């Protein structure tokens, strides 16, 4: 049965864009409260639109929407098609939800420039929606750029300090280079296929497996992996997060970074699946190697940071690496694992960033040393913070566990070893860092906090100094995020939808069929329920390891010298710190090295 989307998916882009244009035009004459109300309304409207799209795609099947009514002629797509299937539509819903929460959090007090915050947030939202719904490769690039430009501007919102400008400059340089790399990849593919629609490119490439296809794939992957902050393309991320206002960080860490991984998965399965099929295992091993490097590097850096936002930023890099590892586990199950993990992680990390914003608002500081023992009067924040730490270790009762168990099952099926170890290490290190900060800030345990150079930059509070009181709209967003992460675990009915959608996304013929005919292809894959008990054991192990590490760090002076593991790791490793030099030239250099490494690995191992 052929279905049409219940409403035009283009509205998910056009409505926030139009609202942004109107808000930008009238912002000089409107009071702040009106901007907040209108911004929130526009964002909720987008949430409604995307929810209708998601509902339609779940209950009536995937569909395609040709903008301007330009249906394909024969096998040639002459217009731009938007493919509405549960995964893309679900990501759009997630974007609208997080943006609404972020706008609620910034209600009245968060510095908004000259009310620039609201239109920029709405444009950012529109770009994320377009990015997840489009079925056209060049259109993907356009929304990639729109998302980047809005993000650069949002990142530099706090212009009173020099640090934000440096952070956003590094962010802008690296991500612009990534954009041009992506465009080069698109052009190379266009030269041999003469197509821009992803399904058509996939059809046209078929089994073609020459240096051109490999290099184009390298460029596309590297460009989107820069957004996804996979080592060595990740260096911009901590700088950008350290300086961006809290509600913006929530969107960056919660979704923007992960959309890079979504694009990699989409391109891999829609375009190169057939071409790489004989070499799938080698490709997965290469992706896994990059994921492992990312997890180790970012995990240790995360524990060595004392600036809350930088610490959470490195934790995002680490978890982005884990998601790539899940994708590398291969097949529809690996994809389902990545998407499950992505959704759960968005809520947990969003909640943690909101809480760091609460601390910044209430305590006027964001470094661990200054926060020491100052937040004892915030028990609910402490509870949510600890919950976040449990979530990062992928322990129950948060939904990250579901993703982890699926990833382990997928790795088992594809004989990829070492995935569980990586999840334990990444989970232990990131949850240990969050627990350590919690013990210091909320409980005041131990012998005072260490610090490091970048933590001492200091960050001006982003809210009006007159208002240190916490209000409901500070509490609701983090609490809602954590609650949703728990609810997703407690009511796992959504998993069967995601499982089947992932099966359809991972099948090139299914995607091709849906893109051209607008007809739903019903695919399904088995549940991974039996993998959950094992994952619970492993995640509890990660949590205990994290707890021990955090305790050995907090009570370092009461331990014998050779047991001070935490303090040793906390001091950080010099070469890793040096890599994070803050110099845009270095960041571009590491990107070049990354592309060269990725490309050589492809040429060497995928050519036989």
């Amino acid at each position, binding site marked *: 049965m052929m279905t049409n989307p219940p409403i035009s998916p283009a509205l998910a882009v056009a409505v926030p864009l139009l609202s942004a244009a109107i808000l930008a035009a009238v912002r000089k004459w409107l009071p702040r409260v009106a901007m907040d109300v209108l911004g929130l309304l526009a964002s909720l409207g987008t949430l409604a639109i995307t929810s209708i799209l998601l509902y339609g795609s779940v209950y009536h099947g995937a569909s395609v929407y040709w903008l301007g009514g330009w249906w394909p002629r024969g096998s040639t797509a002459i217009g731009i098609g938007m493919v509405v299937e549960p995964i893309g539509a679900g990501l759009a819903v997630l974007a609208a939800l997080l943006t609404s929460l972020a706008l609620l959090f910034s209600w009245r007090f968060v510095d908004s420039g000259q009310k620039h915050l609201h239109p920029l947030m709405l444009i950012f939202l529109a770009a994320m929606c377009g990015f997840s719904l489009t079925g056209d490769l060049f259109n993907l690039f356009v929304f990639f*750029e729109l998302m980047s*430009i809005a993000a650069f501007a949002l990142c530099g919102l706090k212009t009173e300090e020099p640090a934000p400008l440096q952070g956003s*400059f590094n962010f802008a340089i690296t991500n612009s*280079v990534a954009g041009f790399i992506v465009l080069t990849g698109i*052009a190379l593919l266009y030269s041999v296929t003469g197509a821009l629609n992803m399904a058509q490119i996939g059809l046209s490439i078929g089994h073609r497996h020459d240096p051109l296809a490999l290099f184009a794939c390298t460029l596309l992957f590297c460009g989107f992996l820069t957004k996804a902050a996979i080592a060595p393309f990740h260096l911009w991320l901590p700088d950008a997060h350290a300086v961006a206002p809290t509600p913006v960080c929530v969107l960056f860490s919660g979704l923007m970074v992960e959309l890079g991984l979504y694009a990699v998965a989409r391109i891999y399965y829609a375009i190169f699946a057939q071409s790489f099929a004989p070499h799938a295992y080698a490709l997965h091993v290469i992706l896994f190697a990059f994921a492992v490097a990312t997890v180790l590097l970012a995990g240790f850096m995360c524990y060595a940071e004392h600036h809350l936002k930088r610490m959470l930023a490195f934790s995002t890099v680490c978890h982005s690496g884990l998601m790539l590892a899940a994708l590398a586990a291969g097949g529809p199950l690996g994809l389902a694992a990545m998407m499950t993990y992505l959704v759960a992680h968005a809520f947990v990390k969003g909640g943690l960033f909101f809480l760091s914003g609460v601390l910044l608002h209430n305590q006027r500081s964001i470094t661990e040393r200054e926060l020491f023992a100052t937040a004892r009067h915030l028990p609910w924040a402490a509870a949510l913070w600890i919950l976040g730490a449990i979530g990062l270790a992928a322990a129950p009762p948060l939904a990250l566990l579901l993703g982890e168990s699926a990833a382990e099952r997928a790795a088992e099926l594809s004989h990829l070893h070492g995935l569980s170890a990586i999840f334990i290490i990444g989970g232990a290190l990131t949850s240990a860092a969050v627990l350590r900060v919690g013990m210091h800030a909320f409980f005041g345990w131990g012998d005072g906090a260490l610090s490091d150079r*970048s933590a001492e930059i200091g960050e001006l509070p982003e809210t009006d100094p007159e208002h240190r009181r916490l209000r409901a709209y500070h509490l609701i967003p983090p609490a809602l995020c954590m609650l949703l992460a728990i609810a997703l675990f407690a009511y796992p009915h959504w998993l069967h939808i995601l499982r089947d959608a992932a099966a359809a996304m991972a099948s090139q013929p299914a995607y091709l069929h849906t893109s051209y005919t607008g007809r739903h292809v019903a695919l399904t894959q088995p549940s991974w329920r039996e993998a959950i008990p094992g994952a619970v054991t492993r995640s509890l192990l990660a949590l205990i390891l994290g707890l021990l590490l955090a305790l050995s760090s907090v009570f370092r002076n009461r331990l014998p010298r050779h047991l001070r593991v935490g303090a040793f790791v906390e001091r950080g490793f010099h070469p890793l710190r040096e890599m994070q030099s803050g*110099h845009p030239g270095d960041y571009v250099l590491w990107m070049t090295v990354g592309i060269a490494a990725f490309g050589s690995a492809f040429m060497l191992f995928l050519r036989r």
Partner: protein
Amino acid sequence: MPGVLHSLPYFVAAWLLLCGLYGLVTSKHLVHAVVCLAILQSSTYMLLLAIGYRVGGSAPIFADISTSKLVVDPVVQALMLTDVVVEAVVVALLLAMVVKAHEKSGSVSPNDLRTLRG
């Protein structure tokens, strides 16, 4: 088309990409870095234009030629137009950041962008 020229524009595009990267890596002045980014961008123009070119094709404008005439690819030209705008826009935004950074710290050297180290 003489054989030596088969891949010339692609090589030039690759060269420009590398030039842009080299400039960005070694830059000592933020404005210089931004200009290098523009050079890097122009590599994509070169590539797109070369891909859509057809020997003997005319411009895809049928104001005074017959619609049956052989034309070069109009799609890459549409993509290039988008690309030109993106370039100008990225440069404008980056320059604004440089100007502001200069106002705040009085320096335009990337070596001084070091408060975010480590």
